[in-house]
């Protein structure tokens, strides 16, 4: 398959198509009649999928460096260039967002009835922004895409959201922006320092990485600037309060994009920018302990709080905070297993939480409420939805054999060496996550149907099944056969660990020596 693709010239132009197509689609959608907006959006989404899915085979997992690289200078004066590339860390996230796009467009087929053109145009902009963040290897381009995402997300939550959507939208934007404006300062500072000493002013990732040594004296505050921006996005424990509001108020498409891709930009940022640039400070004993402890607090705290949420979407939002806590723990576990585990949790969280939000969206389209108490006993009248929800619920709490377990297991076993007590504490979440998930599933599906309004709910129609079934198949496939995914990320993970190895303080437990 790989050679077939290279035979038809499947190289770096793919990224330009993936980024450019949605942008071109925006005017097309805006100026088309309302009825056809959806179809154009879906058409573009499908082409994105077809073009993007080729990456799965075309990406050569044996090489660990950047692939599909393009480097066109854009603003000579400041060394800003349109530099894009994909490597082990970002290939899975690009594929996930490419797969999610058609599902997102299809899931809001019925849900969105007013101002459709605006909605689909925003989805296109959102998609470019998402892809841009993962493929950009130029820090300026990265920051541009990073901020570009806020606008469509703000309008999506602000216009198509539910009750107090404006509060949630503004909170989302301000929270993220306050976090990330320091990052811009840090980026410029870095480029200036490097330019001063080496004479080369360039925002290229490779250039800054090679000269990371020069940034050591300012390592502390530069890392904190990056870390703050990414921590808000992850969301790490104290900065997470925007997520439940944003999720509750966002329309289905917004929630899914937010959960599946936007949250991963924070963790991706840590792996790609924050730690490699300032390894001395980032991986010092104290910073490591602080970040790992915050991650574990986030895991347990969010799981506990999720147990008492009356609103279904808020519950899933808090569960996302808990899952992302795993990713952070994995990153700071700093072993190849924990980093690969972190990437696996990013992917599998995308699948399971994405599916959960789709289903909640479908319920919302039928009953226009997210309160758990309004539902009850749906299993009898919507068996397919109930089965899908139960499977996704169990994948989300990490049942072995489904996708959740692979990532969480690798994160925990990988980080156990460095933080045995924290991993011990984090593993207790296994009980709490089962608690909140089963408790909510039972209250929505598995009890007596008392509310007459629920009688009329129809089961999943064909369109909705087409959105959910591929995700469930993916969950079972990733759960039982994650080898291809692991193969693709292993190159980048090994390179990442070799890069930070010299700086790593000694872990708590000695490394296990190899024997089968």
């Amino acid at each position: 398959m790989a050679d077939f693709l290279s035979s038809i010239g499947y190289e770096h132009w793919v990224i330009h198509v993936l980024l450019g197509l949605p942008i071109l689609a925006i005017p097309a959608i805006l100026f088309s009649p309302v009825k056809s907006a959806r179809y154009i959006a879906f058409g573009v989404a499908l082409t994105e999928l077809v073009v993007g899915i080729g990456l799965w085979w075309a990406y050569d997992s044996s090489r660990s460096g950047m692939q599909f690289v393009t480097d066109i200078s854009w603003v000579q004066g400041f060394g800003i260039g349109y530099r894009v590339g994909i490597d082990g860390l970002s290939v899975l996230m690009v594929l996930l967002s490419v797969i999610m796009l058609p599902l997102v467009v299809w899931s809001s087929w019925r849900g969105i009835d007013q101002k459709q053109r605006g909605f689909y145009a925003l989805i296109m902009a959102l998609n470019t922004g998402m892809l841009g963040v993962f493929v950009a290897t130029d820090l300026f381009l990265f920051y541009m895409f990073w901020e570009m995402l806020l606008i469509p997300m703000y309008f999506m939550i602000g216009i198509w959201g539910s009750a107090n959507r404006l509060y949630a939208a503004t909170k989302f934007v301000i929270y993220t922006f306050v976090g990330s404006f320091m990052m811009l300062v840090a980026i410029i500072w870095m480029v200036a320092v490097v330019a001063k000493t080496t004479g080369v002013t360039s925002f290229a990732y490779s250039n800054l990485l090679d000269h990371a040594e020069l940034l050591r004296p300012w390592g502390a505050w530069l890392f904190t600037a990056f870390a703050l921006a990414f921590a808000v996005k992850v969301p790490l424990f104290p900065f997470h309060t925007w997520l439940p509001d944003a999720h509750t108020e966002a329309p289905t498409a917004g929630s899914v994009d937010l959960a599946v891709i936007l949250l991963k930009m924070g963790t991706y940022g840590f792996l790609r920018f924050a730690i490699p640039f300032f390894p001395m400070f980032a991986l010092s004993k104290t910073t490591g302990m602080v970040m790992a402890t915050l991650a574990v607090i986030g895991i347990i705290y969010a799981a506990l709080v999720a147990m008492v949420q009356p609103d279904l979407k808020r519950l899933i939002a808090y569960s996302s905070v808990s899952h992302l806590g795993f990713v952070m723990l994995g990153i700071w576990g700093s072993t190849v297993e924990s980093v690969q585990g972190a990437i696996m949790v990013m992917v599998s969280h995308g699948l399971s939480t994405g599916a959960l939000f789709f289903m909640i969206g479908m319920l919302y389209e039928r009953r226009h409420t997210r309160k758990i108490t309004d539902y009850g006993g749906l299993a009898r009248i919507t068996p397919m939805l109930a089965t899908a929800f139960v499977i996704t619920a169990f994948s989300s709490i990490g049942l072995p054999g489904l996708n959740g377990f692979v990532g969480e297991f690798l994160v925990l076993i990988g980080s156990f060496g460095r933080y045995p007590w924290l991993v011990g504490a984090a593993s207790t979440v296994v009980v709490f996550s089962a608690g909140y998930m089963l408790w909510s599933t039972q209250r929505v599906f598995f009890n007596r149907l008392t509310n007459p309004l629920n009688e009329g709910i129809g089961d999943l129609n064909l369109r909705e099944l087409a959105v959910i079934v591929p995700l469930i198949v993916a969950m079972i496939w990733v759960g039982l056969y994650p080898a291809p995914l692991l193969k693709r990320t292993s190159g980048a993970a090994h390179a990442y660990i070799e890069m930070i190895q010299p700086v790593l303080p000694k872990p708590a437990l000695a490394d296990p020596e190899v024997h089968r």
Partner: protein
Amino acid sequence: MIQLVWLAVLFPLLGAVINAALAFRRPMAKTAVSIVGVGVMAAAFAVALAVFRELQQSPVASYSVVLWHWMPVTDRLSIDLAFQVDHLSSVMLLVITGVGGLIHLFSVGYMRSDPGYARYFAYLNLFIVFMLVLVLGASLPVSFIGWEGVGLCSYLLIGFWYEVDANSNAGKKAFLANRIGDFGVLIAMFLIWWSLGTLDFTGIMMQGGAHWSRGSTMPLLVALFLFLGCTGKSAQIPLYVWLPDAMAGPTPVSALIHAATMVTAGVFLVVRTAAVFTLAPVALEVVAVVGALTAFFAATIGLRQYDIKKVLAYSTVSQLGYMFLGVGTTAFASGIFHLITHAFFKALLFLGAGSVIHAMHHALHHAHSHADPQDMRNMGGLRRAMPWTFALMGIATLAIAGVPPFAGFFSKDEILGAAFARGSEHPIYYVCWALGLAAALMTAFYMSRLVAMTFFGKYRGGEKSAEHLHEAPWVMTGPLVILAILTIGGGLINLPHFAGGSSWLEHWLAPVVQVAMMMVTPTPEIPSGMETTLIALAIVAAVTGLVGGYVLTTRSSIVTPEHAPEERGIWSLLYHKYYVDEVYHRLIVDPTMWLSRRALWQTVDAFLIDRIGVGGTARLAEGLGWLGSRLQNGQVAFYVTMFAVGAVLILRTLVR
């Protein structure tokens, strides 16, 4: 054939998928569902038999069948989805597919009138898949798939009639208790991998001996965490509370999951990782003590229960205690032996109870009475209406009480003997032996009480329902008969030498626990004189229990639950199962709920971070704005003064 062992897993999986599809498409196609359901089990049993036969002839003790590379992460952590076929797993394979198959057959009759028939069989087949994966797993993570998978299926099956809140709550409670146990297994896995570098059972066996010195902390930690997992799954002292509530599920489910297969997973895991336990003698003692305590404690509660399934549930918890006692005294073979015999007679008892409940439900339904078909106080004198069920349950009662010719006697006696023998090394084992003996006495007592209340005396369920009582159909009593035969013949598997047997099972399982036994002193021989007295003592306990139970129950007046007197004193304590559930609820569940609602959500999240953090900065900005506006107050004089202050300041700085 051994290389095709995965067929045994594939057939039930196919069965589950087909039945699930039928459940969605044509839930009423009952015959198709039962053919698929039971047929798949028969096929799996055939594969198990073939594998067992081939393993008997083959010189090699254990095979590893690798299906695919599950998690090839790095060279030091590369987990394959591999099955390990050795003497232990082949025996378990036979038990699971055999007893499971019989229970599937029984369910065809029992669940016939249930609308969720196809869904039920889909869950049941899925359960068998996960149980087989658990037993066949070659490494801890693969077994862990089965371990949590059976937890999932027990959740689904207990909460099968989800319309009733109590059932789904029981399901959730079962899953959460298991999850607490799974937490233990997870931590054990991490400890093993970080200290030994491997997660395969054979690897653990080999590296364990090499890396860990006997009695050091690491094997003790690993063993204790593993045992935490076992208590969760096999319902031992701290985490047994879910099993009695799990009776909310259909009776065949109770028979399959909560008697024969799932609950024995804990014992299986201990035997599978025997090397770890033998390296930590303290852990062995903990296992033995917890086992003995659970046996005694559960038996006491069983004395005063009126729901037939609750009695059997506490009896299961008690018998599991026996198995852990056996394993705790490094008599692994006798532990497994008791597991097998218990699977037979407990499945028989549960299915018998199922027939009784089925008949009672049928009768009460016709009489439109709302009496509880499971409450023994509504039964009585059923031996005339259901002679076959009475006879078969009688055999099972004799077996469980430990009356000689039946299987129960041999397995229970071996465990008590091992405990007594081990006593000479460490006095704690004498205590365990005493608890075990007392539990044996009580087991005999409550079983004969159960039989007396159900089958003897006069029928208390009201005249109208009396004539509708009739024997269960053949499809239900058939499996009972087979199980009865197994109960009678079960003892032959491991007939001890004093009874002329060759204790075949002990030799059969020797290679599995060979490495473990090397690290521990062999159980000291008890003089033959003492041995006979022990056996006599056990028989006496069994007989007195049986007779006492029968006499006391038939003599005391049994009244239907509506006007039954309030339980008083010690009996109420037993009836309310020492209020353990209420204590757990108040000590653990309520505080966590309070913590997560009041402390975490409302205070930390909503108040501290949102109100103070986010809201606070907003108010700060607003305040600064207000301060600024105060400067424009319209007073010209104020402006001039400010102007002058500015000018003077500038001047001073310049001039100086």
